[in-house]
């Protein structure tokens, strides 16, 4: 019992270092700057919601939010669909070059992004895709492809072949077998991919920062960081509010889907 209490105490201390910075941000986002400078440990005397309005309207968070939503949604649906379809071909069909491509996908999983940063920038420049949604979405879809295809492949490959064969005897074509019979059975893996892609794209900073020179195209991660570097112009309160706005969706999704989240991340790491 004593042992268990000591262990709990240690874990609680670390939990505090994880949680307190976030609570701190929420508290300061509800204070005036004078209040913040005077005492950052206290609860706000009166809750000030103005900081959120300043961030949303003056600091353009409304625009950033719209951009992030659009880019995340399209990258999520597009990226996962692309992986599912290819995963089926890799897992359940035989074609020339299948093994080679599979090995290639596995090899590129560890290419560090600085190598691709500059050439992708110039490719998109030559295609006229800088400062566009498409210029962000393309690389984001590509970012899930190697791991996503491999995960979907093993998910489809693990389904017994008899399932598909009996469907074909009943007169289902290849595509209908895929869509009606096998696809529903891989939903857990699809959910994993959705979570990985959602958190990856929503929080992505480096590419969104390099690809967009126009503030109208910023995602919230970039917009928030830009605003924080001008904290003396906007005031600290709106910066704190901006951080809350940026994180709240991800945290909400995490708390709601906690079980799936943990599973998704460990699967992505161990199998991918």
């Amino acid at each position, binding site marked *: 019992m004593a042992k268990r209490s000591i262990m709990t105490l240690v874990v609680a201390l670390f939990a505090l270092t994880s949680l307190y910075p976030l609570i701190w941000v929420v508290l300061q986002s509800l204070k005036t700057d004078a209040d913040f400078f005077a005492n950052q440990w206290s609860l706000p005397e009166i809750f000030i919601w103005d900081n959120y309005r300043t961030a949303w309207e003056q600091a353009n968070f409304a625009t950033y939010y719209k951009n992030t939503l659009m880019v995340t949604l399209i990258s999520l649906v597009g990226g996962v669909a692309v992986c599912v379809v290819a995963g089926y071909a890799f897992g359940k069909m035989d074609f020339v070059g299948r093994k080679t491509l599979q090995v290639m996908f596995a090899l590129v999983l*560890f290419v560090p992004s600085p190598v691709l940063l500059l050439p992708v920038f110039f490719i998109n420049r030559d295609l006229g895709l800088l400062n566009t949604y498409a210029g962000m979405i393309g690389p984001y879809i590509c970012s899930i492809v190697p791991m996503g295809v491999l995960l979907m492949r093993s998910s489809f490959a693990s389904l017994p072949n008899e399932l598909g064969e009996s469907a074909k005897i009943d007169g289902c074509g290849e595509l209908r077998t895929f869509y009606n019979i096998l696809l529903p059975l891989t939903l857990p893996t699809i959910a994993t991919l959705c979570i990985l892609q959602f958190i990856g794209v929503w929080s992505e900073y480096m590419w969104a920062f390099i690809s967009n020179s126009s503030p109208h195209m910023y995602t919230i991660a970039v917009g928030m960081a830009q605003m924080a570097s001008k904290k003396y112009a906007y005031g600290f309160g709106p910066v704190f509010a901006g951080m809350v706005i940026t994180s709240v969706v991800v945290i909400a999704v995490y708390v709601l889907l906690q079980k799936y989240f943990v599973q998704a991340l460990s699967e992505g790491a161990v199998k991918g």
Partner: protein
Amino acid sequence: MPAGHAIKKQMLAYAMIFPAMFFFTLYLVFPFAKSLQMSLYDYDGVGKLERFVGFGNFAKGFGDLRFYEAMSNNLILMIAEMTISMSIAFLLAYFLFRGVFAWKWFNVVLFLPYIIPLAVSAVIWTLIFEPTIGMLNQLLEAAGLASWRQVWLGDPHTSLFSVILVWIWRTIPFNMLILLGSLLKIPKDLIEASKIDGCTGIRTVWHIILPLMLPTIMLLSIISIANDFRSFDIVWIMTQGGPIGSTEIASTLVYKIGFQENHYGYANAIAIMVFVVVTALVGAIGLIIRRANGQNERSER
């Protein structure tokens, strides 16, 4: 099966992998080739690639102090992450595994630093490290340690340490998650048996649990290396690699040489040199895993 049908089936397979291959080729294979090509030119970002310099950029990179500084900072960051972050993560995972009170609740909370966007963490910690209004200096003052106060991010002596601290804070949850998953897979009766044999807690960890987790730890090391050399947000937002290069890492150096100094060919050469180092590190760990597996098989026989 008639030949026509088989060909049709092949075509369908290619049609199904086409979208994935399209993005894969356009944004991974092609850029990689383009990066190799650009590294051989002196290119300021305007017009076509014209001034061919052969391996000149690489030769310049080998003589560039900034490259060595960035690599050494990045390696320090990596070693700190792999030792400190993984040790703490293991400790927490082990405690959760042994069963602390309210462990479900802790499981959710401990994971938060990994969930919030890295850009947000970077801004939060910049404010915590802020010399006058920052939480850290105020805490030190309140604890009677006023002389310990620092200009954390502004002083080259403490800046790298501060950035690493945040990186550790950020990476603990992920390491913990993977290690906990591996702990839960260890057969319970093995641990019970070692207790009956008189092993105490720490000896069980050292002789039974750690050896069994070695493959996971190795895998985690490979993931860590890749991530440590990918990190950009945290350094860029907190210090932009400064002051005087004290927190420069591979990605920020490539960004600076390229987008700020407009030496895109040279930046690509540096990026490729980083890539080679990372691949060598990952390869070395892969070899160790193979060795270890080989030995295990032999000892089992």
